[in-house]
């Protein structure tokens, strides 16, 4: 009981504004640190790949960006369910704050994938299951952003967006399992929970560090962006107008 009470307490915009403000600088600092170490391992320590030469180093941004594009969409779906079930004010704002970062990661997944595909497969793009479903994910992000910004009524926009986020989430497992379900040019999973990773230990460490850095980057940005959304939506309230950053 007390636990659930405290959850709703933190979900109140006023409390969350302060909490997010205290958290994001630390998360951002940690993201920078891990990103620096990840890049060091990826570019200075990890050896040349025996098949792909130095070209494989694209993996250090491609895989983390692709993972994040899927994770962020699932996070949006999660907040959307909370919005539709509990109708908490924070849920809609969290979903909106996540969307731009997710869209950027989806784009980066496609972009770095194209730059990797060209030298290794001889094609920037092929209409195979993995690539096509990731492209659909990118369009889902754009659709969410376009829809929510086209509706003036904030609550209606949030609810309409929540539907896209939830329905579109079916695409995420399709992306993930596409390399198993269909014959595809795209290689299988680099990391799996059930078997040993198909790459050298040090390369794996570099990639995991980069993934963690991207994850923290996303969290820091979402916390920062949700504060902006709270300011916009609560601009008329006494507590927002009394904030020191407003007075200045």
């Amino acid at each position, binding site marked *: 009981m007390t636990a659930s009470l405290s959850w709703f307490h933190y979900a109140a915009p006023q409390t969350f504004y302060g909490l997010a403000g205290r958290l994001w600088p630390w998360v951002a600092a940690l993201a920078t640190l891990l990103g620096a170490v990840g890049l060091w391992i990826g570019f200075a320590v990890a050896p*040349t790949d025996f098949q792909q*030469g130095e070209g494989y180093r694209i993996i250090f941004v491609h895989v983390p960006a692709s993972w994040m594009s899927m994770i962020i969409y699932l996070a949006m779906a999660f907040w959307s369910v909370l919005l539709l079930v509990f109708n908490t004010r924070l849920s809609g704002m969290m979903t909106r704050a996540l969307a731009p970062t997710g869209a950027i990661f989806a784009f980066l997944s496609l972009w770095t994938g194209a730059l990797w595909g060209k030298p290794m497969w001889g094609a920037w793009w092929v209409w195979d299951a993995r690539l096509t479903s990731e492209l659909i994910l990118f369009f889902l992000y754009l659709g969410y952003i376009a829809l929510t910004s086209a509706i003036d009524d904030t609550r209606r926009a949030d609810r309409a967006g929540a539907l896209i986020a939830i329905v579109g989430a079916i695409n995420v497992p399709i992306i993930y399992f596409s390399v198993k379900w269909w014959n595809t040019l795209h290689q299988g999973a680099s990391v799996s929970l059930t078997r040993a990773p198909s790459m050298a230990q040090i390369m794996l460490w570099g990639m995991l560090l980069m993934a963690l850095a991207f994850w923290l980057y996303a969290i820091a940005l979402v916390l920062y962006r949700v504060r902006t959304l709270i300011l916009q939506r609560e601009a008329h309230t006494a507590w927002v107008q009394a904030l020191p950053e407003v007075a200045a």
Partner: protein
Amino acid sequence: MRWESWAEFWAMGGYGFYVWGSMVVTALLMALEVWQARMARREALRQVQAQRALDALAQDKETDPS
């Protein structure tokens, strides 16, 4: 360190265009996103200030209808 020279590092064994094309665009988009988020916050703070000035004006009119 596994590179003999900077030139070798930038060349990436012939994959320079693809590797750096990935890294640079990733860094650029992230920088752009951070910059955009900062601008959005600044704009939101300006709007709150405007709203506060408006509310203060409305309150003045209520208390002093002259």
